């Protein structure tokens, strides 16, 4: 299973490295989203500094939608998805591989966005261990849930409009948990940040388990 996962992740990341869609299109899109937040809040430093963690994760969610659509869009043409189905690779391995590739892209985008909120919003990045753990767990959860819903919508004509409707409400707990943990890490909330990691870890574990068990069924019908 893990060997297949590495194969699929390597394939997806190689395609991304060659096409450079994440770096040339999605990353600039992420920064434009941050600029738009700045315009929307009238460059008020107080609001932007305090809202920065939430805005960061909203931007990550929007970028995750693009990354997931791209991940399954790659296989829409030339019967590539049929090839993947008939390759004999373990379905759980394919799921883990695609989720790993999405997670790697999201990690790059999060680094770009973190730089963006520090420069544009004057946000502080404190407590690196808590911030790092939050990013890891939230990214795994987003990638796993996104891969499950991505394959669900992959074969449909309405996939571009359906995926946000399906995915955004489902990943709302990630937005909530990651934002609260981040606020605690930079001292903007009084609650402990580590307890929110429990929510993020539970979410990630549930969707990884669902993906490992159900991805084969969904891939058959994609």
């Amino acid at each position, binding site marked *: 299973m893990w060997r297949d996962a590495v194969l699929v992740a390597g394939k997806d990341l190689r395609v991304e490295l060659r096409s450079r869609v994440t770096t040339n299109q999605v990353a600039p899109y992420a920064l434009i989203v941050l600029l738009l937040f700045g315009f929307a809040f009238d460059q008020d430093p107080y609001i932007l500094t305090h809202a920065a963690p939430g805005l960061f994760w909203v931007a990550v969610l929007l970028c995750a939608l693009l990354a997931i659509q791209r991940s399954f869009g790659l296989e829409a043409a030339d019967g590539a998805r049929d090839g993947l189905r008939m390759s004999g690779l373990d379905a759980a391995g394919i799921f883990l591989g695609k989720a790993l590739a999405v997670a790697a892209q999201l990690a790059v985008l999060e680094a770009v966005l973190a730089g963006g909120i520090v420069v544009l919003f004057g946000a502080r990045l404190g407590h690196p261990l808590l911030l790092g753990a939050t990013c890891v767990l939230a990214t795994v959860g987003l990638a796993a849930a996104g891969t499950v819903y991505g394959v669900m919508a992959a074969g449909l004509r*309405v996939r571009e409009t*359906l995926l946000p409707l399906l995915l955004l*409400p*489902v990943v709302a707990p990630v937005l909530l948990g990651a934002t609260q943990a981040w606020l605690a890490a930079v001292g903007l909330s009084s609650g402990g940040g580590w307890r929110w990691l429990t929510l993020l870890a539970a979410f990630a574990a549930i969707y990884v388990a*669902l993906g490992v068990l159900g991805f084969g069924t*969904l891939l058959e*019908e994609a």
Partner: protein
Amino acid sequence: MNYKSLSARPTSNHATLVVGGLTLVGLGVLLVLGLVVSPPDTVQGETVRLIYVHPASATMAYVGFGLCALGSLAYLWPRTRSLRWDRFAGASAEVGVAFCVTTIVSGSIWGRYSWGVWWTWDARLTLTALLLAVFLGYLALRRTGGDPVGRAKRCAVAALCCFLVVPVDHEATNWWVTLHQKDTLFRIGKSPLIHGWQLTTMLLSFAVFGLLFTWMLLHRLGIEALEDRIEEEGYVWAVAERRAEGVAQAPATGPGRPLPGPGLAGGPAAPTMRSAIPPGEGR
């Protein structure tokens, strides 16, 4: 059989008539008890009467989503796999969504008079809104059409993902500090918080809403079955109707040779809708 005969076919039967009749009587009794017999609350005044709608609606929403998850599990289980379970899951989710909307609207009205706002970002309220959103997504997924078997598999997995929100929503008042009041009736080791006619009326509301839920579910199941028949056979009926129109408009002079088609002797079998549409089309 054609579209017209199908649309004229009711989804009612003996079961729906009995359940519907009982529901109507129950709603009448509930209205009298809730609006006339039951007294206003000493603290909440007349707004307490929303308690005869709101908790029962919320419970029926949970029941609907729970049945949707059970139907989906039954569909995914190889020994019980049948499109009937898929239809059951879809119908349950639709009725559950209807009750979830009723819950949010009645709760919002109550909140306006008790808290002074239509909406507040309380854990229970937010999670209920989230629950509605994920099941609206599920219903949107059901409407994507295409091969019924593929749709059923996709929707069954989606339903199980959506159902994960239900226990979290139900336990929200115990896990977090919320404005929403805790359980009124079913309190472990404690007696209910209400008594007399208020308690009787509230218990009756659960029974009546249960009947209403069953009545709606039975009709929705019938409609789902009819929709699947249109998906399966609609193309054949449409072709037969066009051919019949062609025959009717043909000049009456001379013994015209009848056009081949379904129901006409000698004609080749018309394709079913699924076989006539290439894979992936219509989704």
